[in-house]
């Protein structure tokens, strides 16, 4: 349980003169659910972009399962076992729901031009497995994404279902670590409660380790083992939800300085 799956040391990134992240230390243990919170512009999404290889850090070190991720392309990072979702849902809107999930298994499969041209036994076997895995992953969300909808383009989905499909797509990559960027943003309270339950199940039933950026404090409280608060690219506080949420620095970052402090 306590094996360290992701270990980040002294990570910094600057865009021109702007320090998006500054000497960030962060770790995730196997089987943990870590909530990352922080005000807008704190560097949370940059942090995800950096882990997933879309932005190269200026300095520092990212170790995944003991091996460095620096210099890897995003697809290599995914192949290592880290998958992510996007804050501003980025589905392949004109591919069908099934295809969105099938295409995510690309790095776990290997049939190429020859297999598909000659329709080899291995090719057919692999296609079947891809399809089965896709349906299994979509089945995780109950009746919402399954059934006759499989062959419909993703663009017909509602906003909440698009978020679910994004999570399904990340799950389908057969990764060990999921990075969820605001998974319940735009959902109503009932839907976010339901998704909170599913995030718990992602760990208990599917064995994913999860890092989640979220603004909805109910979700963060309900599901996180540990909470990290970022502000201005630095770790402000970390610990259990109660510790972090009562931390004066965190409150100050979110709400500003209390009035009486100013008078002293």
């Amino acid at each position, binding site marked *: 349980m306590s094996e360290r799956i992701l270990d980040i040391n002294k990570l910094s990134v600057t865009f021109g003169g702007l320090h998006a992240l500054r000497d960030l230390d962060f770790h995730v243990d196997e089987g943990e659910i870590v909530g990352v919170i922080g005000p807008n512009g704190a560097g949370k999404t940059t942090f995800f972009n950096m882990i997933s290889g*879309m932005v190269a850090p200026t300095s520092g070190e990212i170790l995944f399962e003991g091996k460095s991720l620096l210099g890897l392309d995003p*697809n290599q990072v*995914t192949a290592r076992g880290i998958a992510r979702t996007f804050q501003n849902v980025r589905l392949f809107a004109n*591919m069908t729901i099934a295809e969105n999930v099938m*295409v995510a298994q690309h790095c776990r499969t290997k049939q190429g031009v020859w297999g*598909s*041209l000659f329709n080899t036994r291995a090719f057919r076997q692999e296609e079947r497995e891809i399809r089965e895995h896709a349906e299994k992953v979509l089945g995780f969300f109950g009746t919402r994404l399954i059934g006759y909808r499989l062959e419909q383009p993703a663009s017909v989905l509602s906003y909440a279902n698009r978020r679910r499909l994004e999570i399904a797509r990340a799950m389908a990559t057969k990764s060990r670590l999921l990075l969820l960027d605001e998974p319940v943003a735009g959902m*109503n309270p009932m839907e976010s409660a339901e998704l909170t339950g599913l995030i718990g199940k992602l760990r208990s039933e599917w064995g994913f380790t999860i890092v989640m950026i979220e603004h909805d404090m109910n979700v963060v409280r309900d599901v996180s083992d540990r909470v990290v608060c970022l502000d201005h690219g630095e770790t402000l506080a970390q610990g259990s939800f109660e510790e972090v949420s009562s931390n004066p620095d965190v409150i100050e970052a979110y709400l500003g300085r209390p009035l009486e402090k100013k008078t002293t």
Partner: protein
Amino acid sequence: MSDLISNDMTEDGSNELVDRGAFDLDWNRVGRMGALAALAMWFVSLSGMPVDLDSRAIIDPDLSLGYLALVVIPVIFGWLVGNEVVLEGMAATKRGPRDVVAGAAVGLLSGLATAILLVLINNFDIRDPLVNWSPDLLSLLTFGRSNAFGIFVWLLLSAVLGVAGASLRLLAPRIRRAIIVVLVSVLSMSIFQAVIDDLFGAIDPLIDLLYAKTGGLTRQGAIVIAVVSGGLSLTGRGRIKAARDDYAAKTGPERTRQTAIMLAITTVLLIVLPFFTGKIINELLANVGIFLLLALGLNIVVGLAGILDLGYVAFFAVGGYTTAVLTAARPGESWPDWLPHTPWIVALLITIVIAAMVGLFIGAPVIRMRGDYLAIVTLGFGEIIRILFLSDWLNGFFGGAQGIINIPAAEFGFIGEVSGVSPRSVFYLVLVFAAIAIYASWRLERSRLGRAWMAIREDESVAEAMGINTVNAKLMAFVVGAVLASFAGAIFSAKVGSIFPSSFLILISIIILVVVIVGGMGNILGVIVGAVVLIGILGGPRQPGLLTEFSEYKLLIYGALLIWMMLQRPEGLVPNVRRSRELHQEEFLQDAWLKGEVDHDDGTPGDGVDPDGGTEVAPA
């Protein structure tokens, strides 16, 4: 999908109709349309098209292709002036005499322009800059009679044609469709005269009835075709559509069986066809086949993987030159003695390898770029390859501008040989490779790689984040495309028997791309239709089509067609389902919404309305 692009919503009767007086027109709009029609008349007249195309008769004494180029203008603008954007729930104007008046006005303006042009040509001579400002044009415009007669006829004729164009809107859709079918049938029967002559040449009475000795339909032939096609359109209405829907609705083995039957019939027809057609038509079929092969390859690169490759001709050239070097007796003095002199089929295998390697070599640096940058760089590489073949530096290998000549025919043992002397054999060879290309496109689209291409086309960054090695996947598309183009090159060099750098101009890339776009990017059937329509009827860059007279105006027509397609039907003649969804996202979602396929707000699928989730497109 055709219901998606229909902009004429008055037919469904959902709008409130307002009756307006016959002269209560938007005169501004009428004037604008009339001015455009007038400009079009001038442009077409002075482009030289009417004079050059006058030699091609459509209906023997009455209508030539040259006159057709002029008389369609008032009809088109007469139709266009009645075009009205009707929004749902808004009041629309009732169709009626108003449209006729507008059409007549627009027609009259275009006729006036022709009359003015006629007078100007008669009185001034500015042939120096305008080559086609000629007595020939004058005599064409006056119908070989007096100027007054010409002016009178053009004013009257244009007004009538404008009215005809406008009246099309007044007719019931059924009748309108029948009229369009009649016009298209008469025109295409006339265009396909050479083919029909070859096919049914044995049945003299039929040919004599339909076609005049000097070319073009006879009057009674045109009437027969009009009656038959009109009758068929009226009685057979909806049957084709019903059959197609029936086919589309079928699934599983039943559908597979039907598809197999259709494929078998098509194959047999294609194999039998060249025995009945003459040498000229077979030559044409072979050319269509070569361009089809190229277009299918480019379709994989552009249509499936979304890589806009403007230098595709490079691989055609590599295929052609490699085959030429390996098969020709004396490819060039700089080649070492040990260079093998192989039969065509062995050369083809080596060509495939070389083309794949060149594809990798060019692709590796290029493929990391995206969008416009990639297009420009591929354009550059396309030219570089041609200039290398042309260069003095490699003169000893590829013969520079003199090229490589005396390329032998492709031998296939006892089956025979394929060379330009027998276009039928070339056609069969092309057919085999086109079948391979179609099969490859069809298989690849439905595979792991095809899905990866689709994802890359939609959002490259996300595709990469989802674990797709985008560089490898795109490179794969590039290489497959290169190999297919090299097939075409190999056949081309055996067919023509000599190749020169000037056979591989960048223009070929552009024309293949136009074939793919006009036909329907990403759709195999669309690419076939595009190749048949563009290369078969209009002709390739150097190869004449059925309308041989068009050769000079081919590029003009291509350009006009391309612009029109981009505006009216960007998904192509036979669209790919996904692509038309991309291009008509809002209409598609509206349709899905009406069918109740869009989600509820609470995410329950199926039966209702979701104002947020449905109409909004995921931000890119």
